């Protein structure tokens, strides 16, 4: 087993370090967070340097890459303190590359290349959260057109995106596994309205309710096969969980590094607080968690690269990473003492942003729901 980096990975990470230093300093991130703005200039710089098309097939101007390398890059960007800074757009592109029409591919890859967020992912509804199959938004096909009605909620980046990748069902079909389809709906289509939700996490990404009132589009807005939406969505979820876990790893590492540095400097009772065993215990347990998350994330990525069936691996990895990473950030905040909850201290942002990852991509509990069933099935 080789835990070393390849030359290519090492050079790529060094390149990324240069880019982050130049385009994504802490002052930039803090400002975006304060003003609730997306990291558009950083995304553009990433695209200009070729990171945006990493992992895409060559015929679409990309450079193929393994999942392990991508995960290391996502971790590195998050270690800078930037939440969801890299990786999720790639997944979106994968959805379209795998299931989209030529026209959809050209449109979405073009937006990505420009540093824009091509689409928000819309499956959650007021009445359908963890239980996606309960969704009520309808898509009725008629005369080469399709009409949508319904409400989506908690949709990330809706205001920044040109499109909504909408999950909606055919009201004529009972079985949710056959009734749901995927559509690419322009956010400025007549009948689409949004309501921004104020939230205490992820300030650089907006979250919205989206209302669809008789939104009518040509049938060419369908992505992939009619009735296969659920299956297509599940494909996306597996990799999404891995990217989320890598993002949690990087944010937690950032919080740990901040806390350890602070512990070495902050003097109370005449000594650096890092000399107290209670603080050392925290730092030690945090370091163990980080090591565990890293191994979990890297091994899961390696399984993807080996084309091994992930089964419940993605759910196990996402649950552990999101929870342990938040614990690391929480202890980091504790080490900072009261100053840790002030806005000027980075650890407060990391703590907030990590909390959000215990919902997005499926809650901690739903990961048990997925993995637990699989474990019992494997043993019966």
């Amino acid at each position: 087993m080789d835990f070393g980096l390849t030359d290519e990975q090492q050079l790529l990470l060094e390149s990324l370090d240069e880019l982050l230093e130049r385009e994504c300093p802490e002052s930039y991130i803090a400002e975006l967070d304060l003003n609730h703005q997306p990291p558009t200039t950083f995304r553009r710089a990433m695209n200009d340097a070729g990171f945006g098309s990493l992992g895409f097939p060559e015929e679409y101007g990309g450079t193929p890459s393994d999942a392990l390398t991508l995960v290391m890059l996502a971790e590195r960007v998050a270690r800078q303190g930037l939440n969801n800074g890299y990786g999720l757009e790639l997944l979106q592109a994968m959805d379209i590359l795998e299931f989209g029409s030529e026209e959809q591919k050209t449109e979405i890859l073009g937006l990505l290349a420009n540093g824009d967020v091509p689409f928000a992912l819309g499956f959650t509804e007021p009445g359908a959260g963890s239980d996606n199959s309960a969704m009520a938004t309808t898509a009725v096909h008629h005369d080469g057109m399709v009409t949508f009605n319904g409400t989506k909620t908690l949709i990330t980046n809706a205001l920044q995106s040109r499109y909504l990748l909408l999950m909606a069902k055919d009201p004529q079909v009972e079985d949710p596994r056959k009734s749901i389809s995927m559509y690419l709906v322009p956010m400025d289509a007549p009948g689409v309205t949004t309501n921004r939700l104020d939230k205490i996490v992820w300030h650089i990404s907006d979250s919205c309710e989206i209302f669809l009132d008789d939104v009518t589009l040509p049938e060419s807005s369908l992505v992939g096969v009619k009735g296969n939406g659920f299956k297509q969505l599940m494909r996306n979820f597996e990799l999404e969980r891995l990217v989320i876990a890598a993002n949690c790893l990087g944010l937690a590492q950032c919080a740990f590094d901040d806390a350890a540095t602070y512990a070495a400097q902050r003097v109370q009772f005449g000594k650096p607080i890092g000399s107290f065993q209670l603080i050392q215990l925290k730092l030690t347990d945090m370091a163990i968690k980080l090591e565990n998350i890293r191994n979990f994330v890297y091994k899961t990525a390696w399984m993807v690269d080996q084309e091994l069936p992930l089964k419940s691996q993605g759910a196990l990895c996402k649950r552990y990473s999101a929870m342990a990473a938040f614990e690391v950030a929480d202890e980091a905040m504790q080490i900072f003492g009261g100053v840790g909850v002030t806005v000027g201290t980075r650890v407060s942002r990391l703590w907030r942003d990590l909390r959000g990852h215990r919902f997005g991509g499926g809650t901690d509990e739903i990961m048990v729901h997925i993995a637990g069933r699989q474990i019992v099935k494997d043993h019966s």
Partner: protein
Amino acid sequence: MKIVVAYKWAPNPQDAEVAPDGSVDWSRAKGAVSEYDPVAFEAARQLADATGGEVVGLTVGAASVDSPLARKAALSRGLDRLVVVADDRLADADGTRLAAVLAAAVRSIGDVDLVLAGDSSVDVAEGQVPMTLAGQLGWLGMAAVSGVTPSADGVVVERDLPGGITTLALTGPAVLAVTTDAVVPRVPGMKDILGAAKKPVEVVPLDALEVPDVVAATTLSGSRPETGNRRGVIIDGADASSAAAELVAALRTARAL
């Protein structure tokens, strides 16, 4: 136009450890293209692209300057090919000897129009090699070059000197050392890094070069730079205006104002 980029494979400053007495321990530092050299790579690439020319990387040093990683790191920064002289007899070579070897290598490459180099190396920082190289070649040498652009019969060079900015036209071969902010070097992407493994590398044995002997100086003693007396003064910021007054007073006492 054939442009050589003379660069150093130097220890990465991120891995250097600075002891409380100010001494720097490089022993655990991994190699990297010396911090200010990517500017020369970028300036050379831009010039070559504008003139349809070729960029040849050139590095000389101990055997360790030639590894697969070191080759890819340099070749991913816009070079067309690479020439390496790696020999442990150069392990502790001073700037003059390195410049002599570089000059011999430039002559062996042949038909070189321009040599670009960084301002100085990150570990030694003497800034002496490019101008010594120019002297060895018998070419025009210029430091503090803040811009190079092609012209009909050569290049136009901009220099940023204490007296102001000077613009000059060059026709003959020259060695130019570029300032750290002459251009913004591009960051190598995956395509560049993967492509680097496929570019040609020529390893030139030291013995194949005609290098004149250089008498080296003997170091008699060394001392650490004066870091001054550091003092930590903590000012209570509860009242902003009195804190500002205290800060000004403290800076006056320290003769910083």
